[in-house]
């Protein structure tokens, strides 16, 4: 039980902090796009802006994902769910979170393979004229997906704690 509490506080704390940083990525994104419009209109269009914006967007939603999960942003279809008592909700979540874990795990599996590939053959480069290496964005994705996995486990632990001792750690943050 204590291990679970510890886990929750470490994982949630970390993801919270990271998400708080990632959320400012929106301004980075705006900056890049503004810079791109400025150059297009008044100077010469830039090679890298669109692709860089895409990379930032990936960082934004993948690294921000766990924090969004903490905020309860991931919608559910709650036709029946909404009517359940908190305990029943926790029970269902304990089971259904396994599907989420499996999905994230297989997503990560593919991600790791693809990332390993990006280091092979002298380093995979994006098929654009800018030709950035692909590993930084892929590594970022793997990290984000792993953190998402950890966060999902943390959600599971919270439900277990709630069912066992009635303590509600879910809105701790």
């Amino acid at each position, binding site marked *: 039980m204590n291990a679970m509490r510890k886990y929750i506080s470490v994982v949630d704390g970390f993801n919270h902090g990271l998400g708080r940083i990632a959320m400012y990525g929106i301004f980075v*994104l705006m900056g890049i796009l503004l810079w791109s*419009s400025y150059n297009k209109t008044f100077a010469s269009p830039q090679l890298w802006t669109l692709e860089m914006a895409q990379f930032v967007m990936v960082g934004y939603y993948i690294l921000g994902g766990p924090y*969004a999960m903490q*905020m309860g942003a991931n919608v559910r279809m709650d036709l029946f769910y909404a009517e359940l008592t908190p305990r029943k*909700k926790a029970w269902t979540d304990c089971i259904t979170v396994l599907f989420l874990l499996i999905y994230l795990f297989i997503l990560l*599996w*593919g991600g790791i393979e693809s990332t390993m590939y990006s280091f092979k053959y002298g380093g995979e480069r994006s098929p654009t004229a800018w030709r950035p290496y692909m590993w930084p964005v892929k590594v970022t994705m793997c990290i984000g997906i792993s953190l998402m996995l950890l966060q999902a486990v943390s959600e599971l632990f919270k439900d277990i704690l709630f069912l066992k001792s009635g303590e509600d750690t879910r809105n701790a943050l």
Partner: protein
Amino acid sequence: MPYELIAILMFSTMMLMLLTGQRVFGAIGFVAVIAALFLWGDRGGYDIGFSAAIKLMRWYPLLTLPMFIFMGYVLSESKIADDLYKMFHVFMGGVRGGLAIGTIGLMVLISAMNGLSVAGMAIGATIALPELLKRNYDKLMVTGVIQAGSSLGILVPPSVVLVLYAMIARQPVGQLWLAGAIPGLMMATMFIIYIAIRCRINPELGPALPPEERDVGWPEKLRLLRAGLLPVVIFAVMMVPFVNGWTSLVESSAIGAIAAFLAAILKGRMTRQVFETSVRQTLAITCMFMWIILAALAFGAVFDGLGAVKAIENLFTEQWGLNPWVILILMQLSFLIMGTFLDDTAMLVIVAPLYVPLVGALGFDLVWYGVLYTITCQIAYMTPPFGYNLFLMRAMAPPEITITDIYRSIIPFVGVMILALAVVMLFPQIALWLPNYVYGK
């Protein structure tokens, strides 16, 4: 196992999984990756989930998503839409149901500034709703007004849904946006007529404001009228460079977001609190969308791999030998039904690739179909059990509005929307006249 059977199995499993109330992206993603493993697991197959992430990264129009969301939150949180609302309040308040009618007007203006319905929902629920309730407007009606009105955000240009549709149907975005304009205004008018009639029959629903509340004097009236300039300015800052080809769509959305941000600062409304909420909520909502699309793309790839496209086409045309219009109506019906359960982007990614080529092959205009599709999405946004506007409404509505209220409130408006859908189906010119006129087809 025959592929059709697997496809049906996948779809029904996903629906069942959704009913458990788990996170939508988890349910869709799980079915997708498991199906991929089951089908292709002898070699590879586990990479489909992740390749979807790369696809998603390269799908550049999605960059507009956080921009429009941020813009929506800035507009609503900073309450710069307050004056806009007061404008309608003063000018329309005297009519029975006038405030509700004014709210629709407000929603149209906000729709012209934004490509999603989040902004309209947020503004409607936080600014308009409390006011309307205070004036004794019927809570069922006004809850419906806000949900329906805000959904115009995806039909009145600019529209993110139409951009995504454009990418999948490979139709010109400019024409699609223009095609949405008149149906959008038409639908707004239909809402207004509905409200006016209801309030005429039953004045209780929307009592007229007493004159002393509206009589603010002409200087104030003019000041309020000026508030109407804000959306015009933001719309222009965003659309003029885009239409002239100076900036791309994605860049324009960033400019729009920055414009809204600056407007809030200039008006002295960008407090720490507003800033914090806008930035945080933008992350939350963007993540919600992106993770769903991520999962749906994987699902779509497997679905595609099963040849579901050919199967459906074959079923409709060869096996059932249906007439094109019957097929079209069946498709819209199935979209409507799926829309109650599914996220609209998921619907777009999973089902549109099946339907759109078929619609084209049947000889229908794909720009027009884009408008039909968007209206269906509007309906999907507000029909339970799954709808973004429903969720937002629940999150933001004051406590006296219960879930049942929210569910019941949409019924008449869905009726109006289906009517609008039928009208646009019967008279394609409503959608096509403007783009044909401008692009001179």
